C-alpha cells in the first residue's frame, strides 16, 4: 500500500477537525481577546498587554492563589485517602472489590451540582441533616462549616476522590506481590516497603490521579459557590464575573490565558515524566 493511499489521515480527520474547531479555535480567540484593550467586544489588531498588567496590579493573584491552594490541598488529601483504599481494594477486598468500586463510581453519574446541594443540605446548621439528626437523637448541638472555605474544600475532596482513586487503583495493581515480599525479606519495615517499592511502582497511577484531580480542581467553581458561599473568590469565579457581570471580555480572557499558562507549567513537566507504557503494560 502506498503512503498516499493510507487511510490513517482520513480516520484521524474527524477528531482533527473537532479539535481545531472546539479546542484550538477557542484558545486562539481567547488569547486574541486577552490582547485587546479593556471592555472591547471586537477582535482588532490593536494589541496591548494592559490586561495582563492589570490582572496582576488589580489583585487577581489572590483568587489564583485560592484556586492553586484548593487544588493542591484537594490533591494531597485525596491521595492520602485513596492510597490505603486502593491498597485494601486491590489486596484484601477480594470479590467485594468490584462492588465497592462500583459504589464509589456511582456518584460520578449524578450531576455535580445535585451532589453539592445534597452536601449543602447535609451540612446546614440547626435543621440540616447532620446537625438536626445529632440534635434530635443525642441532643448534641453543633455549628456548621457551611459557607466557609473549609466547606468548599470538603466538597472538592468529596467530588474528586474517584478521580484519584481509580487511577491509583490501577497503579497499585502494577505492584507485583513478590517485590513487596522481597523487600520485607531484605529487612524493610512497612513504611520502608511503601517508600522504596510500593510508591515508586504505583507512581504512574498516582501521577495520573494527581494530574486529573489538580487540573479539575483548578477549574472548579461550584464547590466554592454552593458550599463555600463565596467566602473566598476562586479564579474561575473571577473569570466568570469578568465575562458576565463586568462585561470585560479582554480581562476575563487575560485571566483565562493566565490559568492555562500556570496549569501547563505545572502539568507538562509531570506529564513528560509519565511512562504510559508501564500503565498499559506495553
Amino acid at each position, binding site marked *: 500500500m502506498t503512503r498516499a493511499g493510507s487511510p490513517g489521515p482520513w480516520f484521524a480527520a474527524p477528531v482533527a477537525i473537532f479539535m481545531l474547531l472546539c479546542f484550538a479555535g477557542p484558545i486562539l480567540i481567547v488569547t486574541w481577546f486577552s490582547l485587546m484593550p479593556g471592555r472591547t467586544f471586537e477582535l482588532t489588531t490593536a494589541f496591548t498587554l494592559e490586561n495582563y498588567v492589570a490582572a496582576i496590579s488589580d489583585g487577581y493573584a489572590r483568587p489564583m492563589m485560592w484556586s492553586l491552594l484548593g487544588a493542591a490541598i484537594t490533591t494531597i488529601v485525596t491521595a492520602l485517602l485513596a492510597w490505603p483504599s486502593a491498597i485494601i481494594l486491590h489486596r484484601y477486598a477480594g470479590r467485594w472489590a468490584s462492588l465497592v468500586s462500583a459504589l464509589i463510581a456511582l456518584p460520578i453519574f449524578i450531576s455535580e451540582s445535585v451532589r453539592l446541594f445534597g452536601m449543602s443540605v447535609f451540612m446546614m446548621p440547626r435543621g440540616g441533616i447532620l446537625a438536626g439528626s445529632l440534635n434530635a437523637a443525642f441532643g448534641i448541638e453543633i455549628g456548621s462549616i457551611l459557607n466557609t472555605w473549609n466547606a468548599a474544600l470538603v466538597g472538592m475532596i468529596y467530588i474528586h476522590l474517584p478521580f484519584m482513586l481509580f487511577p491509583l487503583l490501577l497503579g497499585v495493581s502494577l505492584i*507485583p506481590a*513478590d*517485590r513487596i*515480599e*522481597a*523487600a*520485607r*525479606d*531484605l*529487612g*524493610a*519495615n512497612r513504611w*520502608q516497603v511503601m517508600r*522504596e*517499592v510500593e510508591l*515508586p*511502582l504505583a507512581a504512574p497511577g498516582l501521577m495520573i490521579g494527581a494530574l486529573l484531580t489538580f487540573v479539575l480542581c483548578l477549574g472548579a467553581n461550584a464547590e466554592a459557590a454552593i458550599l463555600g458561599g463565596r467566602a473566598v473568590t476562586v479564579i474561575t469565579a473571577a473569570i466568570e464575573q469578568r465575562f458576565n457581570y463586568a462585561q470585560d471580555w479582554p480581562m476575563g480572557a487575560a485571566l483565562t490565558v493566565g490559568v492555562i499558562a500556570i496549569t501547563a507549567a505545572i502539568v507538562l513537566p509531570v506529564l513528560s515524566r509519565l511512562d504510559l507504557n508501564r500503565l498499559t503494560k506495553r
Partner: protein
Amino acid sequence: MTAEAARATDRPVILSLAGLSKKFGDTSAVKQVSIDIPEGEFLTIVGPSGSGKSTLVRLLAGLETPTSGTLKLRGKDITAVPANRRPTALVFQSLALFDHRTVGQNIEFAMKMKGVPADKRKARALELLALVRLSDSYYERPVTHCSGGERQRVALARAFASDPEILFFDEPLSAIDYRLRKTLEVELKELHQRTGRTFVYITHSLEEAMIMSDRIAILKDGDLIQIGTPAEIYRQPRDRFVASFMGEVNILGVEDGTFPDIGHPAPGDAAGAYAIVRPEDLLPGSRDVTAEYAVTQRLMLGSRTQLHLASPSGASFVSEIAGEAEAFEVGTSHAFGFDTDRIAWVDR
C-alpha cells in the same frame, strides 16, 4: 542414617524445624516436617510440583506463618518473627528484582534499610559484584538492561548483601536455559564452599540437587519422605517414589519368591517387596539374575547408550551401557543381568 547422624553432630544446628505444618483452608501444604540443619550445610529440598516445597521455604523465610510447629534459629524460637527481622535471605523463583532501580541499588537495598552509609554500601556492593563474577560497570546499570544470567547473579548478590546467616533459594534456576543453568549450579556450589554459609535450596530437579547438595530432603504431598546424602538417596531410596524420582530406574516386584516380570526366582535374602535396579547395573551378559530381553529402543547419550528393553512377559526395563553398543540393534534379543548386591530393596 549413620552418616547423616555423624554429619549432624559435626557442627552446631543452625536451623531446626520441629513438626512444621501449614494448612491453607482444608488442604495441608506442609505436614509435620522436622529437620535439623547443621551450620554451613547445603541442604536441598526436592519434590514434584504441589509437594509443598515452596510453602516450606516461605515458612522458613517468614513469608508465611506455620499452622503448627516451631522453627528455631540457633536454639532461639523464631516461629513468630516476621521476615524483615529474620537474619535470612530468600532468592525468589521470579528473582523479584526491583526493576525501577539500578543493579547497585538492588544490591544495596538490605544495607540501606539498615541505615548503612552510602559510601560503605557502595564498597560492599562492588565486593558482592565481584563475588558473583560481575564487573564494576554493572553497578550503575538498570536491572532491566541485564540478561537472564546477569539478573540471577544480581539477585544472589542482593541476598548476600543482607549478610544472612542462612540463604534460601526457591527454584531460582528453573526458568534458565540448560547450559547457563549448569554453569550457575557449579558457581552456586563454589559460592557455598567459599562463603561457608548455610544454603537451603528448593528444586523439582533431583539432578540439580545431586550436583550441589550435602544432603537432600525429599518431599511428597507435604510429607518429608527421606533425608540423606545424595549417595544415600541414590543407593538406598526409602520407597519406589524416591527411587523413580531419581531418574530412570527398574522396579521389580517380588511375588512368591520370584520376579514375575522376568520369570526368575528372587534371591533368598530379598529384603523388601520391590527390587530397585539402576540402569547402569542392568548389563549385558550373565550375572546373578539374568534373563532374555528384547531391545525396543536405542538412545545415544554421548559417552553412553541407553537401551529400552522388554522382558518376555512384556515389562519395560532400561539399561545404560558405556560406548555405542552397536550389537544391540532394535529388535534383537540378548541376555541381560544384574548382581544381587546392586539391588536396593524397598517395601512400598
